[in-house]
């Protein structure tokens, strides 16, 4: 058997197996009357390794034999194959975040008072881990509850220069009405939630305008 055919067969074996194969096993996969000697297989493996030099995968040897492996430097792209879809944050988390933004510095108890329900520890933890929120002090009352405020990262994420750029309460009430109208329209058309999402994105661009329009008010 010529070396090229040998290479092709070994390459095929390694890729089809999806796990390491020892040289002895490679040998045994050939019929007795065409079985290559060990050194021929080693030669073929060396050539295969060289030919992969500029490709997305490489031939490596591990304890149980040889296998093809995707190059380490490709992991950022490859890992996306298995990437889970990011989950959405709960309404409770968004409310908590909004209250911290608008009422900072604020304690958890104060948030709970406005929301009318307890704020779960995991929500606070998530916001702290995301570094959107930080502890800026403790209130000198029994239990010394932490006082929360938003961070620069929070402003950066939402493309804000300062908290001033957030809409006023009146605008938020308006937003709420508008949203209600939108919701009603969407229910009628019975559009998918996906489309709804897109819509909220497009509306968001008009948000920027509003923010700009409002600025003189604050000066």
């Amino acid at each position: 058997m010529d070396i090229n055919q040998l290479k092709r067969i070994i390459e095929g074996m390694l890729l089809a197996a999806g796990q390491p194969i020892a040289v002895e096993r490679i040998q045994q996969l050939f019929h007795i009357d065409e079985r290559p000697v060990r050194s021929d297989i080693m030669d073929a493996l060396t050539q295969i390794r060289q030919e992969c030099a500029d490709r997305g995968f490489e031939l490596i040897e591990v304890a149980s034999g040889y296998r093809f492996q995707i190059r380490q430097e490709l992991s950022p792209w490859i890992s996306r194959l298995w990437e889970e879809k990011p989950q959405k944050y709960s309404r409770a988390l968004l409310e908590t975040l909004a209250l911290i933004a608008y009422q900072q510095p604020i304690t958890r108890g104060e948030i709970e008072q406005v929301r009318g329900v307890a704020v779960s520890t995991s929500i606070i933890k998530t916001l702290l881990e995301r570094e959107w929120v930080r502890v800026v002090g403790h209130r000198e009352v029994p239990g010394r509850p932490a006082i929360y405020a938003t961070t620069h990262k929070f402003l950066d994420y939402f493309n804000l220069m300062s908290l001033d750029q957030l809409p006023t309460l009146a605008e938020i009430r308006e937003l709420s009405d508008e949203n209600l109208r939108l919701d009603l329209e969407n229910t009628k058309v019975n559009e998918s939630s996906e489309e709804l999402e897109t819509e909220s994105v497009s509306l968001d661009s008009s948000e920027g305008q509003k923010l700009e329009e409002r600025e003189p008010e604050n000066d």
Partner: protein
Amino acid sequence: MLTEQNKIVLNETSQPHSSSAVQAELLAKVPDDLYIPPDALEVILDTFEGPLDLLLYLIRRKNLDILDIPVAQITVQYIQYIEVMQNFRFDLAGEYLVMAAMLAEIKSRMLIPRENEVEDEEDPRAELVRRLQEYERFKQAAQDIDDLPRMSRDTFTVSAEPPEMERQKPLPEVDLREVLLALADVIVRADKFAHHHIQLEPLSTREKMTHILIRLSEIEGGFLPFVSLFKIEEGRLGVVVSFLALLELIKDSLVEIVQTEDEGHIHVKARSGATAALVSFESDMRTSGPTVTESVDQGLLF
């Protein structure tokens, strides 16, 4: 599930359908030889995918044109087969008998002399021929599909070990609008609950309050000179906002003003002390449940 499936496939694959040579040989013997081993017959019956298949076999074996079947001859052979099968008490599918009846009927109709060749009179075999052809084309199509290059037989999937990967869970994306809508909801709820409307203070004051607390938390001792809270660059408005923020913090009992000697420097001090502010949120975890303080009602909402 899997084992059941395997079993089914096993049973089905035991049919020698793929080797037509064997099939033909076996079948050719049956009507002639009277002795047929029972298990051989089972194989034969299994070989046919129903009466149409059997009929097709009989036609093809005699090298006959499907469009010109000698019904009488074929019917005799077909019934021979059925009889052999019945003799061995085979659980013969009803379809085979229906076909026998159909053949007999066609045969009898063929025997009636066609007196006047009426143009639109259909050949009694027409329906049968159509069905035979229809069946045959799919029998062929099945064979063609079987001959297609197929995964795990003619070709195999290829895979390589993926590189080491950090399986990062992507963080959820949030639209500012979602945050605002959430706030709008809270406000509507709180309005109903509290009988009076929430008023949000200017955010610049809120932000400044946070800045002062952060500065205090970062200074050792938690003391800041009063004057250091104000910056000329901020302009008059900025100074006013800073002052309002400071008043708000005092009202909330978050900071206090300290003057150690008459006409001495005024300092701002965090009520909770400097180090406390840096304590991780872990301590907050322990204080679960609403911690309502007096300052809430004054400073926060109304």
